[in-house]
Protein backbone atom coordinates (compact mmCIF):
# COMPACT_ATOMS: atom_id res chain seq x y z
CA UNK A 1 0.00 0.00 0.00
CA UNK A 2 2.67 2.50 0.88
CA UNK A 3 4.71 1.45 -2.13
CA UNK A 4 1.81 2.31 -4.48
CA UNK A 5 1.45 5.68 -2.76
CA UNK A 6 5.18 6.32 -3.08
CA UNK A 7 5.14 5.54 -6.81
CA UNK A 8 2.19 7.89 -7.31
CA UNK A 9 3.89 10.69 -5.37
CA UNK A 10 7.08 10.16 -7.32
CA UNK A 11 5.36 10.52 -10.68
CA UNK A 12 3.59 13.70 -9.61
CA UNK A 13 6.83 15.17 -8.21
CA UNK A 14 8.79 14.51 -11.39
CA UNK A 15 6.09 15.87 -13.70
CA UNK A 16 5.75 19.04 -11.62
CA UNK A 17 9.52 19.54 -11.59
CA UNK A 18 9.60 19.37 -15.38
CA UNK A 19 6.75 21.92 -15.51
CA UNK A 20 8.65 24.19 -13.10
CA UNK A 21 11.67 24.33 -15.34
CA UNK A 22 10.19 24.45 -18.80
CA UNK A 23 7.06 26.59 -18.47
CA UNK A 24 7.30 30.11 -19.84
CA UNK A 25 5.13 31.85 -17.28
CA UNK A 26 7.18 32.52 -14.16
CA UNK A 27 4.25 32.48 -11.75
CA UNK A 28 3.34 28.93 -12.73
CA UNK A 29 6.94 27.83 -12.30
CA UNK A 30 7.17 29.27 -8.78
CA UNK A 31 3.91 27.69 -7.67
CA UNK A 32 5.05 24.35 -9.10
CA UNK A 33 8.18 24.58 -6.96
CA UNK A 34 6.01 25.13 -3.89
CA UNK A 35 3.85 22.11 -4.66
CA UNK A 36 6.96 19.93 -5.16
CA UNK A 37 7.97 20.88 -1.62
CA UNK A 38 4.52 19.95 -0.34
CA UNK A 39 4.56 16.49 -1.93
CA UNK A 40 8.10 15.94 -0.71
CA UNK A 41 6.78 16.61 2.80
CA UNK A 42 4.18 13.83 2.38
CA UNK A 43 6.95 11.52 1.12
CA UNK A 44 8.96 12.30 4.25
CA UNK A 45 5.99 11.18 6.35
CA UNK A 46 5.90 7.88 4.49
CA UNK A 47 9.59 7.43 5.29
CA UNK A 48 8.92 7.71 9.07
CA UNK A 49 10.43 11.19 9.59
CA UNK A 50 7.85 13.58 11.14
CA UNK A 51 10.34 16.28 12.18
CA UNK A 52 11.72 16.59 8.68
CA UNK A 53 8.20 16.65 7.20
CA UNK A 54 7.17 19.54 9.44
CA UNK A 55 10.31 21.51 8.60
CA UNK A 56 10.01 20.98 4.85
CA UNK A 57 6.32 21.90 4.81
CA UNK A 58 6.78 25.17 6.64
CA UNK A 59 10.12 26.28 5.20
CA UNK A 60 10.35 24.73 1.75
CA UNK A 61 6.73 25.11 0.76
CA UNK A 62 5.71 28.25 2.61
CA UNK A 63 8.52 30.72 3.11
CA UNK A 64 10.47 29.91 -0.04
CA UNK A 65 7.47 30.57 -2.31
CA UNK A 66 6.76 33.87 -0.53
CA UNK A 67 10.34 35.07 -1.04
CA UNK A 68 10.17 34.19 -4.74
CA UNK A 69 6.98 36.20 -5.14
CA UNK A 70 8.45 39.28 -3.46
CA UNK A 71 11.33 39.32 -5.93
CA UNK A 72 9.02 38.72 -8.90
CA UNK A 73 6.79 41.60 -7.85
CA UNK A 74 9.72 43.95 -7.54
CA UNK A 75 10.98 43.04 -11.01
CA UNK A 76 7.52 43.47 -12.58
CA UNK A 77 7.11 46.77 -10.80
CA UNK A 78 10.25 48.30 -12.24
CA UNK A 79 9.50 46.88 -15.66
CA UNK A 80 6.54 49.15 -16.47
Amino acid at each position, binding site marked *: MSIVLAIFLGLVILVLAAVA*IYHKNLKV*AIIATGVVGLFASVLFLLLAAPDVAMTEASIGSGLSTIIFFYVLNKIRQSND
Partner: protein
Amino acid sequence: MTQYFTLEFIAMFIGFMLLIIGVWGMLTQKNLIKIVIGYSLFTTGLNIAIVSIAYIKNSTAPILDKAVDRASAGNLVADPLPQALVLTSIVIGLGVTALMLTYVLRMYKEKKSLDINSYTDLKW
Protein backbone atom coordinates in the same frame (compact mmCIF):
# COMPACT_ATOMS: atom_id res chain seq x y z
CA MET B 1 14.45 -7.74 -9.88
CA THR B 2 11.57 -7.78 -7.42
CA GLN B 3 13.81 -6.90 -4.51
CA TYR B 4 14.18 -3.45 -6.05
CA PHE B 5 10.62 -2.46 -5.29
CA THR B 6 11.15 -1.59 -1.65
CA LEU B 7 10.15 1.83 -0.34
CA GLU B 8 13.68 3.09 0.28
CA PHE B 9 14.85 2.25 -3.21
CA ILE B 10 11.91 4.05 -4.81
CA ALA B 11 12.44 7.09 -2.60
CA MET B 12 16.14 7.22 -3.40
CA PHE B 13 15.32 6.98 -7.11
CA ILE B 14 12.86 9.87 -6.83
CA GLY B 15 15.45 11.92 -4.96
CA PHE B 16 18.16 11.39 -7.52
CA MET B 17 15.86 12.08 -10.49
CA LEU B 18 14.76 15.35 -8.86
CA LEU B 19 18.41 16.23 -8.28
CA ILE B 20 19.23 15.60 -11.94
CA ILE B 21 16.26 17.71 -13.11
CA GLY B 22 17.35 20.55 -10.83
CA VAL B 23 20.96 20.54 -12.01
CA TRP B 24 19.83 20.27 -15.65
CA GLY B 25 17.65 23.33 -15.13
CA MET B 26 20.47 25.29 -13.53
CA LEU B 27 22.77 24.55 -16.44
CA THR B 28 20.51 25.10 -19.44
CA GLN B 29 18.03 27.84 -18.55
CA LYS B 30 18.65 31.45 -19.49
CA ASN B 31 16.29 33.27 -17.16
CA LEU B 32 17.91 34.17 -13.85
CA ILE B 33 14.88 33.24 -11.76
CA LYS B 34 14.65 29.84 -13.45
CA ILE B 35 18.23 29.18 -12.33
CA VAL B 36 17.25 29.84 -8.71
CA ILE B 37 14.20 27.58 -9.11
CA GLY B 38 16.56 24.88 -10.36
CA TYR B 39 18.69 25.29 -7.25
CA SER B 40 15.64 24.94 -4.99
CA LEU B 41 14.57 21.71 -6.73
CA PHE B 42 18.12 20.37 -6.47
CA THR B 43 18.22 20.95 -2.71
CA THR B 44 14.83 19.30 -2.18
CA GLY B 45 15.84 16.23 -4.19
CA LEU B 46 19.06 15.85 -2.24
CA ASN B 47 17.17 15.95 1.05
CA ILE B 48 14.78 13.22 -0.14
CA ALA B 49 17.74 11.04 -1.10
CA ILE B 50 19.39 11.44 2.32
CA VAL B 51 16.22 10.71 4.31
CA SER B 52 15.61 7.56 2.29
CA ILE B 53 18.83 6.12 3.73
CA ALA B 54 17.41 6.37 7.23
CA TYR B 55 14.45 4.09 6.63
CA ILE B 56 14.54 0.53 7.92
CA LYS B 57 11.89 -1.90 6.80
CA ASN B 58 8.66 -1.67 8.86
CA SER B 59 10.04 0.92 11.25
CA THR B 60 8.30 3.84 12.88
CA ALA B 61 9.20 7.41 13.76
CA PRO B 62 12.14 7.85 16.18
CA ILE B 63 10.12 9.15 19.11
CA LEU B 64 9.85 7.13 22.31
CA ASP B 65 6.36 7.25 23.71
CA LYS B 66 3.76 4.73 24.81
CA ALA B 67 3.60 2.98 21.46
CA VAL B 68 7.29 2.08 21.36
CA ASP B 69 8.71 -0.27 23.93
CA ARG B 70 11.82 1.33 25.35
CA ALA B 71 13.74 -1.84 25.97
CA SER B 72 13.63 -3.09 22.42
CA ALA B 73 13.54 0.31 20.75
CA GLY B 74 16.66 -0.38 18.78
CA ASN B 75 14.82 -2.67 16.40
CA LEU B 76 11.68 -0.62 15.93
CA VAL B 77 12.63 2.95 15.16
CA ALA B 78 14.20 4.46 12.09
CA ASP B 79 17.67 5.92 12.14
CA PRO B 80 17.68 9.41 13.73
CA LEU B 81 21.10 10.54 12.50
CA PRO B 82 20.38 11.32 8.80
CA GLN B 83 17.11 12.96 9.83
CA ALA B 84 19.00 15.38 12.06
CA LEU B 85 21.39 16.25 9.24
CA VAL B 86 18.54 16.87 6.80
CA LEU B 87 16.90 19.23 9.32
CA THR B 88 19.98 21.43 9.16
CA SER B 89 20.19 21.11 5.38
CA ILE B 90 16.65 22.35 4.73
CA VAL B 91 17.20 25.54 6.72
CA ILE B 92 20.53 26.20 5.01
CA GLY B 93 18.83 25.69 1.62
CA LEU B 94 16.36 28.44 2.45
CA GLY B 95 19.16 30.78 3.50
CA VAL B 96 21.11 30.25 0.30
CA THR B 97 17.96 30.68 -1.85
CA ALA B 98 17.23 34.01 -0.15
CA LEU B 99 20.81 35.12 -0.76
CA MET B 100 20.67 34.16 -4.46
CA LEU B 101 17.43 36.08 -4.92
CA THR B 102 19.02 39.15 -3.35
CA TYR B 103 21.81 38.95 -5.91
CA VAL B 104 19.23 38.63 -8.71
CA LEU B 105 17.55 41.83 -7.49
CA ARG B 106 20.79 43.80 -7.48
CA MET B 107 21.85 42.48 -10.87
CA TYR B 108 18.49 43.44 -12.34
CA LYS B 109 18.82 46.92 -10.96
CA GLU B 110 22.16 47.34 -12.75
CA LYS B 111 21.29 46.20 -16.25
CA LYS B 112 17.50 45.83 -16.40
CA SER B 113 17.65 42.39 -17.98
CA LEU B 114 16.85 38.92 -16.70
CA ASP B 115 18.80 37.12 -19.40
CA ILE B 116 22.10 35.67 -18.31
CA ASN B 117 23.72 36.21 -21.70
CA SER B 118 23.67 39.96 -21.21
CA TYR B 119 26.03 39.90 -18.26
CA THR B 120 29.29 39.73 -20.13
CA ASP B 121 31.49 41.73 -17.75
CA LEU B 122 33.68 38.81 -16.77
CA LYS B 123 34.14 37.38 -20.26
CA TRP B 124 37.42 38.01 -22.00
